[in-house]
C-alpha cells in the first residue's frame, strides 16, 4: 500500500528534517531512496513535492547547502542548520503528538461504530 500524496504533503517537512538529523548531509535523490528503503516502498516521495520543500526549508534557514561537482553536474547536499535542529525536535514531537491524537480519535470512532 502506497500512502496518498495528501497524507504525505503535511508531513514531508518533518520527514526531510528528521532524515537530515539522522544522516548529517544528504542530496535529493538520496532522500527519496532512503525514505523508500526505510518505509519498504510504502512512502514514495515525488520529485514534485521534495524539491519545493527543500527550497522552502533552505529559505527558512532550517537547512544549509553545499554544492559538489560530480563530473559535469553539480550535486547539492543538504544538512541541518542550528535552527533546523531545534525545529526538527519541535516538528517531530508535534507529529508524534498528532499521531497519538489521531489514533485516539479514530479508535473512538471505531468503537462507537
Amino acid at each position: 500500500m502506497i500512502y496518498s500524496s495528501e497524507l504525505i504533503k503535511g508531513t514531508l517537512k518533518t520527514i526531510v528534517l528528521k532524515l537530515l538529523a539522522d544522516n548529517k548531509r544528504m542530496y535529493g535523490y538520496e532522500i527519496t531512496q532512503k525514505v523508500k528503503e526505510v518505509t519498504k516502498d510504502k512512502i514514495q516521495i515525488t520529485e514534485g513535492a521534495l524539491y519545493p520543500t527543500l527550497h522552502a526549508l533552505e529559505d527558512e534557514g532550517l537547512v544549509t547547502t553545499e554544492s559538489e561537482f560530480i563530473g559535469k553536474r553539480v550535486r547539492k547536499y543538504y544538512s541541518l542548520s542550528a535552527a533546523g535542529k531545534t525545529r526538527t525536535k519541535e516538528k517531530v514531537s508535534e507529529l508524534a503528538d498528532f499521531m497519538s491524537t489521531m489514533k485516539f480519535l479514530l479508535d473512538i470512532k471505531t468503537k462507537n461504530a
Partner: protein
Amino acid sequence: MYCLSDKQIDYILNDIRARGVEMEDLQLNLLDHVCCIIEQKLEVNGDFERFYQTTIASFYKQELWEIEEETLILLTFKNYYTMKKIMIMTGGVSAFATIMGVWFKYMHWPGASALLSLGILSGCLVFLPLMFILKAREQPGKINKFLTATGALCAMMIGLSFLFKVMHWPGVIGLIYFSTLLMALVFLPLYFYTGIRNPATRVNAISSSVLIILGYGLILLLVNTRPYIQEHAGRHANQFLQQSYEVMSWQNNAMYKDLSAKNNEPLLMLNRQCNNLCSDIEKLKVELINKTNDVALNKVDYNYLEIHSSTIRLDNFDIPTSLLFDADLSVKPALLDLRQQINSLDELARTSFKIDDFNHFFEISKDDPAQATTWEKENFYRTPLSYLLRNLTQVQLNVRYAELSCIASYRDMPLQASLN
C-alpha cells in the same frame, strides 16, 4: 550501472530548461536527480533517450515547470492561501457592494454612497493589489510582471476616479487623465506588442485589446454625451415653455374679449402692463442672443440656436451675465426695469383686483436685502444663455398666469358682491 556522457548531461539540462524550469538551483537539483535514476536503473546498453523521457515524465502531472511553480509558491507565499482567500473574499464583497451601490443610487435610497465607497475602495485597494501580487508571481519574465503591474494600477485608478466622480471628491480630472494616459500610452501598446509576438497569445491579445478600447471608449462616450443631452434637452424645454406662454397669452386675450374689457379701465391697464412687460422680456431675450453671439436676429429663433450649438453650450454664461450685472454684482437697468414693472403690476393687482399675493408668481417677495441671493441672482446670474432664455420665458408665462388670476378675480367680483 549506466554511465552518462557529458553530451547526455547537457542534453538533459537543456531539456529541463526547455520545459520551462528557470531557477538554476532547481535545474541542477533535477538534473542530478534524473542522472542518479538513470545511472542506477538503466542497463549499460539501454536506450538512454527513451528511458530519460519516461523518467522525466514521472516527475510531474502535466508540465515539469509545475515543480518550479510549487517551489515559488512555497518560497514567496508562506501566506499564499490566506492572501488568496482574502482576495476572493474582498473580490466578492467589492462586486456585490458596487452593484448594490449602483442600484441604491438609481433608486435614490440612502446608503448608496457608503455601498459604492465600500465596493470600489475594497476592490481597488485590496482586491486588485492582491491579485497583482499573486498574478505577477505566475508571470514569467520582467515584461509580463511590469504589464501586470501597470494593468492593475490602471484598473485601480480608473475605479477610484469613478468613485471620486460620484462622490464629488477633488482630483478626479488628474486621476482620469493619468490612468487614461497610462493605459493608452504604456499598458495597451506593450500588452498588444508582447501578446502578438507569441503565436499562442496572439488572438487573445488582439481581442482583449479591442475589448478594452471598446469598453473604455463607450464609457468616455457616455461621459461626453451628458452635456450634449443636457444642452439639447434645454432647447426642447425652451420651445415647450414658449408654446405654453403663447397659448396662455391667447387664452387671456379671449377672456378680455368675453368680459368686454374695452369699457373697463383697470382691465385695460392690466392688459397694457402685462403686454408691455412680456414684450420687454422678449426684446431682452433677442438682445441677449444677439450680443452674446454677435448676430442681429429680429426674434428668438430656437432653430438658429440649435444650428449654432455653441450658443447653447452650458459654459456660455460670461457674456450674458455681463449684460445683466455690473462687476460689483449690482443689477443693470434691463433687469431693474423688469423688477419695477412686476412691482407695479403687483400694485395694480392689489388695488384693482384684490389680489394680495401677486408676487408669489415670481418669488420676488421672498427677497431679503440682507440675503446674498436675490430673485435676479437666482435666475439670471452666471446662468448659461440657454437656461437664461428659459427663465425669461418662465417669467413671461408667470406674468400671464398672474394676469389670468386678476381677470378671474374681476370676473368673479360681481358674483362675490352678490353673495356678500
